[in-house]
């Protein structure tokens, strides 16, 4: 087996040469793979995933649904969906993407259904639809029935379908494997170096095209809905290659995470009449948002909860020692508890031992989603600056910022993005590999970057403690780079991150094995969490305004001066270069019907 004595023993053990490499086998990565297989049967594809099976990817946990306007719907219109997305983004989504995604939404729902997804049905046997926060008819007038769903497991339905199709077409999976370095030749991406954890071997995968779809990254927050694997590896590979990331300051906090584990307690609970209460059981949302009350947008409700907590009207959980408020579901009729919110209420029973029919449920804002990511154009081609792309490198899903969400995402628009943009990228890759040259032999320096990192971990022998650094990071990010931000806190956070990064160099590994060495992988992940936290903090410090989920107490208004996307480059931690990318306003500029709704509009609910 593979236990190594010296860092110099690290080497590339083998080389694989598929035509396409997909890094990240979640909903987005596999929708893309399925598209390539359908368009060009026989294409050889390797898909890499950190988890035991693609089916275990984080997409499987999404509950609510996927937005799409059914062309047979007599009252809903695609332009309303586009408007809601633009408004929700606080005027910083790209309109070319909004248009492409919303227009192809229904077609992609039908694709999933025809490939076997078990959507919930209407009496007529058609796909059922339900309302969801921020999705309205008539430019924000009344709620729209636009979210297509599979009970409370829509993400699982998508995941099973695209995984099944990939299997059917013979996609090869490398499970329990981590991409550790991107490979380039003359500026073109030619694949990646992957560590297979089950046997401790490094394999260089050389491909004509590489698609990155590694999902989200919010594990640096103390309370987060994200899975254990969401540590920002993909974004760090991008940064290490000298490429930029975009809008990382935009982190969505979901207002109702179950205190402690951070598990998502769906918006549906408030949709059905659940009420937020503070320590004195006062229904405080009435004070902040007299009309929308508990159903105000996610960022607004999260800020109200944090204000209650800061002003001393929160509670402290006796077991988890974390501050929280209450979600009251006691008054909801028995049939609602039994039929509509059974599974989510089950989470309170299972994970905090609370019975929502008779007891108050402890909730707190939880880091949920990254709006930013690797910048791409409308075809999912990864950009090296505001204008040029990196040949051979593509991105889709939560990992990518095309961007559909700008600084705030609407519920149900993420799953939609996976399948629509996943398909677009698949189409583009198919065309590219038709004429692209072979990637050639393995680049001479392949592995050098990851081996030097791993050498660092293998050789370090300090007194620092992994868990202490990890926990300090999580508290720091929650306190100073969380729901509320200000110059003082952000500046302090950047200094503290530098110190944590320094301490992380003085960790000592418990074992030198490369086989399923959790300790080694965690050190590597911790480096990513620290690096990405640094970019979030620096980008947040530079954006001296409030927009969507990015809220600056010292600059509480949105400002026209910051009407752009943040691009950030950082090859070594702390040494950051910021740049800008324009926000696409093509719907507005085309001056078609209703174009005026797509200008710089107010975001009021």
């Amino acid at each position: 087996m593979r236990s190594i004595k010296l860092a110099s023993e690290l080497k590339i053990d083998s080389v694989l040469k598929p035509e396409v490499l997909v890094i990240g086998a979640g909903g987005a990565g596999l929708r893309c793979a399925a598209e390539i297989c359908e368009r060009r049967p026989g294409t050889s594809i390797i898909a890499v995933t950190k988890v035991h099976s693609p089916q275990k990817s984080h997409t499987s946990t999404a509950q609510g649904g996927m937005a799409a306007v059914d062309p047979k719907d007599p009252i809903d219109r695609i332009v309303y969906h586009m408007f809601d997305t633009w408004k929700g983004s606080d005027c910083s989504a790209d309109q070319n993407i909004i248009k492409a995604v919303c227009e192809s939404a229904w077609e992609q729902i039908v694709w999933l259904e025809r490939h076997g997804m078990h959507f919930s049905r209407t009496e007529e046997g058609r796909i059922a639809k339900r309302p969801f926060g921020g999705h309205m008819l008539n430019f924000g007038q009344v709620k729209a029935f636009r979210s297509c769903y599979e009970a409370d497991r829509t993400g699982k339905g998508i995941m099973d379908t695209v995984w099944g199709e990939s299997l059917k077409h013979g996609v090869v999976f490398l499970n329990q494997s981590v991409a550790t370095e991107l490979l380039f030749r003359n500026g073109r991406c030619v694949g990646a170096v992957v560590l297979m954890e089950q046997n401790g071997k490094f394999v260089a995968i050389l491909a004509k095209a590489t698609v990155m779809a590694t999902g989200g990254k919010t594990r640096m927050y103390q309370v987060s809905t994200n899975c254990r694997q969401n540590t920002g590896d993909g974004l760090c590979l991008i940064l290490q290659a000298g490429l930029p990331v975009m809008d990382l300051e935009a982190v969505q906090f979901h207002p109702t995470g179950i205190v402690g584990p951070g598990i998502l307690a769906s918006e549906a609970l408030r949709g059905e009449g659940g009420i937020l209460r503070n320590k004195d059981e006062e229904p405080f949302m009435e004070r902040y948002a007299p009309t929308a009350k508990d159903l105000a947008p996610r960022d607004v409700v999260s800020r109200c909860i944090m204000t209650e907590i800061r002003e001393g009207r929160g509670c402290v959980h006796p077991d988890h020692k974390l501050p929280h408020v209450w979600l009251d579901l006691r008054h909801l009729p028995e049939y609602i508890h039994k039929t509509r919110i059974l599974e989510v209420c089950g989470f309170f029973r299972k994970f905090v031992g609370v019975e929502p029919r008779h007891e108050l449920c402890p909730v707190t804002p939880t880091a949920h989603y990254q709006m930013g990511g690797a910048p791409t154009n409308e075809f999912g081609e990864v950009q090296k600056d505001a204008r040029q792309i990196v040949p051979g490198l593509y991105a889709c899903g939560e990992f990518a910022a095309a961007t559909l969400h700008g600084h705030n995402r609407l519920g149900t628009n993420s799953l939609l993005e996976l399948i629509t943009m996943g398909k677009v990228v698949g189409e583009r890759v198919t065309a590219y590999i038709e004429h692209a040259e072979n990637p050639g032999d393995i680049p001479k320096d392949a592995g050098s970057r990851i081996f030097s990192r791993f050498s660092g971990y293998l050789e370090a022998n300090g007194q620092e403690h992994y868990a202490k650094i990890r926990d300090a990071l999580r508290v720091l990010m929650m306190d100073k780079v969380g729901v509320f931000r200000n110059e003082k806190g952000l500046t302090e956070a950047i200094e503290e991150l530098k110190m944590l990064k320094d301490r992380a160099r003085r960790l000592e590994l418990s074992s030198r094995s490369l086989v399923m060495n959790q300790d080694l992988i965690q050190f590597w992940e911790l480096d990513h969490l620290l690096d990405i936290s640094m970019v979030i903090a620096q980008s947040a410090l530079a954006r001296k305004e409030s927009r969507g989920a990015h809220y600056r107490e010292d600059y509480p208004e949105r400002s026209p001066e910051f009407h752009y996307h943040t691009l950030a480059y950082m090859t070594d931690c702390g040494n950051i270069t910021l740049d800008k990318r324009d926000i696409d306003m093509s719907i507005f500029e085309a001056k078609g019907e209703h174009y005026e709704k797509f200008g710089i509009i107010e975001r009021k609910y």
Partner: protein
Amino acid sequence: MSQEYDITLKISRYDPDTGRSWIQDYHLKAGRILRFVDLFRQINDEQDPTLAWSSSCEHAQCGTCGMKINGKPLLACELLVKNAVELFETHTFRVEPLTIAPVIRDLVVDLEKAYDRIHLVKPYLIAPAPPHPDGDEYRISPRVLKTYEEATRCINCFCCSTACVTTQRNYLGPNAMLANIVRIMDPRETAEKERLDVLHGENGTPRCRTARACSFVCPKEIDIAHFIALAKEGAFRRSL
């Protein structure tokens, strides 16, 4: 206020680098509502960073953290300390990996091998029916969906397969059977013959002894035995 328990975990260890297996005892103080995955993290943080275990979503949606605790296959993310103490009436817990696939290290098994069984039953539409004449989705009445919807909730945690008395070698196992049955009952699938051949083939229904252990342990509370009973009787209703 919050109650603490003195807990002993007797965990199966395996080191692939030396081939050594042993049982290791860990003593810890644990809060009432900590999950077993939190206990493993606590061991990693405070006592032994080398203990390897798997998880992902940690709220019973992905099926990565299946293992045997005092002999019962379950998801470690779903088991709270106080519930475990009540359920097993002890403060000492024997923790073992699932027996459905080879162990890679400690509690981590090679789920990829276990998944081979699922791949055998082709978890997708082999031959989809022609699309609806309107050009959009198929029409499936909620009543038809209801007959097999329960079975679509399976997350392939392999707890049932571990509990199943006959599974080990030749039987496909309850969850692979379920994955096949879903598509037999799904009106969109036309490859009925191929599916029935696998269902009743030598690794299928003849191997099931109707012990119902699968239904008993399923964390999703799916009545797997009910579906397998339907299969044995050939009692599927199918219509689009």
